[in-house]
């Protein structure tokens, strides 16, 4: 009994070591608290309805508009550097036939218009989320974030942070195919 008791601290410590080692060596682990599993995945996307940024930019959309097709919804802003970094990949996705919608997060019409003119507008439609209220509704923690919505309006996948070629190949495209297949 006494022997068992004195071994207990060693065992507890060994378990703790294992846990810490697992966390430290997990290359996938992202310690940024904003990149958390979203509870919305698998659920119907909360209803939002957004106006267009400006008259000459196709846009304004609501969750109703997303139904019937698998869509990608990309949350972006002109002031966001990582958004610019992922923009070519978003453009490529759209060029390859994906229906990409944009949520313009906490931005001004003028800045967003200039940005789109300079870098191109791959979006089917863009909704202006000036006060970030719609982003809140979808559990967005920062820009950029990308959602895949299936034909029934359910959120199939969410990626927080910029899309890199690895993320595109490893996560976005498979999930997109899955959503289209199912």
């Amino acid at each position, binding site marked *: 009994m006494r022997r068992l008791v004195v071994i207990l601290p060693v065992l507890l410590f060994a378990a703790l070591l294992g846990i810490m080692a697992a966390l430290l060596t997990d290359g996938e682990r992202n310690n940024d*608290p904003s990149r958390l599993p979203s*509870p*919305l995945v698998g659920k119907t996307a909360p209803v939002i309805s957004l106006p267009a940024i400006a008259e000459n930019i196709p846009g304004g959309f609501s969750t109703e508009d997303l139904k019937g097709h698998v869509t990608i919804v990309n949350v972006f802003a002109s002031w966001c550097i990582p958004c610019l970094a992922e923009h070519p990949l978003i453009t490529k996705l759209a060029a390859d036939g994906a229906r990409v919608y944009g949520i313009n997060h906490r931005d001004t019409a003028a800045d967003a218009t200039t940005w789109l003119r300079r870098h191109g507008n791959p979006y089917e439609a863009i909704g202006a989320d000036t006060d*970030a209220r719609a982003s*809140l*509704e979808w*559990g967005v923690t920062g820009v950029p974030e990308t959602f895949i919505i299936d034909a029934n309006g359910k959120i199939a996948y969410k990626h927080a942070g910029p899309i890199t070629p690895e993320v595109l190949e490893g996560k976005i495209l498979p999930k997109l195919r899955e959503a289209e297949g199912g």
Partner: protein
Amino acid sequence: MKQIPAILALTILVVMAGGPPALAVEPDEVLANPVLEGRARAISTELRCVVCQNQSIDDSDADIARDLRLLVRERLVAGDNDEEVVDYIVARYGDFVLLRPPFQPNTLALWLGPPLMAVIIATLSVLFYQTYQRRRRAGTGPEPLSPSDRAELDALVERIASTNPPSPSSVPRSRFRAEIEEGLKPPPDPDDELPGADESSDNDTHAGNADTQRQT
């Protein structure tokens, strides 16, 4: 002076019950209804700002924290009760936003850990008390002599008795043995005679004396 009403509208005085103060809450966020505002503040202190490091939305001046503070107030004004407001945000951001983790399967160990440890400690105390009572009833002296000890003692008594020539006031062997056994017991501890009230106020000096006495 015409600015005064505007200031009053923007001003709120909240007497918080143990809540942290507002670093972040800006005057324009504050609800006119002090009861609702008080509830909003209480809810805000329990919600984590997801992009911050261990700050509640009430403490953080991050954009999203402000947005969430406004959302909390919006839901309260819309008539939600506190639980509904929290559920609304948890549905979008997950359990991670709760600074008070919910009591559910994956937090059982967290919430039950401290009470369980308390129970273990209480059990140990009871066990200790029982051991004490048992040992006290058995007498505080050394453990009873084992048969081999007894045999050794008998032999010793025999040897001493045989080497020492019997004196006139010869002590019966049985009493001699009793004295040896008595000698094996620890010296009487002065602590055992409970001191008077005044004396025991000095128990440090007293304990010190006890040490010295035992030493000598």
